[in-house]
């Protein structure tokens, strides 16, 4: 299983379980893997137990029934920082789906059918959508781009014997 890690706002991954052990994470880290709809606290995944340093549980700011007037905001002690999780931001910390850029470039330069250019266009689309926060759109573009790469390679392979036929036809 491959995991993506968000530790103190720094994202990394994919790593496997052994990799997580070496990362020196704390219980404040968030983890995501394929199949999870959202990031979860590392403490919520039983298979990762003991692979991170346990931080002292942060005390919940006590909710008291005291009237607010007696405690002016300025003198009120700042509530202990709870690791607040910004879901909008986290949506963009899911790793970018593959842009297939390498394959797109290879098929453009090496296959004689210029369909690799479409694959480059889709690589651009993946990157754009991902940065707009549209993960689903990026995934769709990534898949379409991958099909264009595969189609380009197949067309290139089909075209090879065709080129010999044309050469022979030209020679005769």
């Amino acid at each position, binding site marked *: 299983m491959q995991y993506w890690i968000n530790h103190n706002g720094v*994202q*990394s*991954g*994919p*790593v496997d379980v052994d*990799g997580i052990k070496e990362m020196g994470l704390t219980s404040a880290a968030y983890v995501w893997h394929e199949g999870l709809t959202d990031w979860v606290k590392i403490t919520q995944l039983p298979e990762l137990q003991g692979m991170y340093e346990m931080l002292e549980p942060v005390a919940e700011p006590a909710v008291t029934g005291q009237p607010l007037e007696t405690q002016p905001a300025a003198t009120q002690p700042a509530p202990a920082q709870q690791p607040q999780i910004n879901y909008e931001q986290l949506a963009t910390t899911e790793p*970018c789906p593959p*842009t297939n*850029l*390498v394959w797109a*470039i*290879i098929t*453009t*330069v*090496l*296959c*004689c*059918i*210029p369909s*690799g*250019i479409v694959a*480059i*266009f889709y*690589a*651009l689309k993946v*990157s*754009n959508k991902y*940065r707009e926060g549209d993960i689903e759109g990026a995934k769709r573009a990534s898949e379409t781009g991958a099909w264009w790469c595969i189609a380009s390679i197949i067309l290139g392979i089909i*075209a*090879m014997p*065709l*080129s*010999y036929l*044309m*050469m022979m036809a*030209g020679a005769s």
Partner: protein
Amino acid sequence: MRRTLVVLLVLAALLVIGAVYYALDPSASGLFPRCVFLSMTGYKCPGCGSQRAIHALLHGDVLGAFKYNALLLVAVPWIILCLYAESRRVRNPRLYARLNAPLLIWLFLAMVLIWWLLRNIFNW
């Protein structure tokens, strides 16, 4: 482990292909496939000349490679850099993100399209 095996197989295949392209000159030998796009439409595709360019590159003839297909000279380091970034994505996610940023992909796309247009106008 599986990844290492795949990398080794790919490297071995590249070595064999490289040896063929080193030993045989695509502009002299009839063994190499010609561009179907060129034979059908009469227009060069962005990849035309890349076989001859690879042969020239393998012989250290950078200028010759540039004349056959200038795009290939840009694409090869680009591909190597992208593959490197992909293999280091865990340790260096920033490099990967930068190489796959919209701006750089745009740049490459524009380069390919302009190259395609210009080479057909000026017969490069």
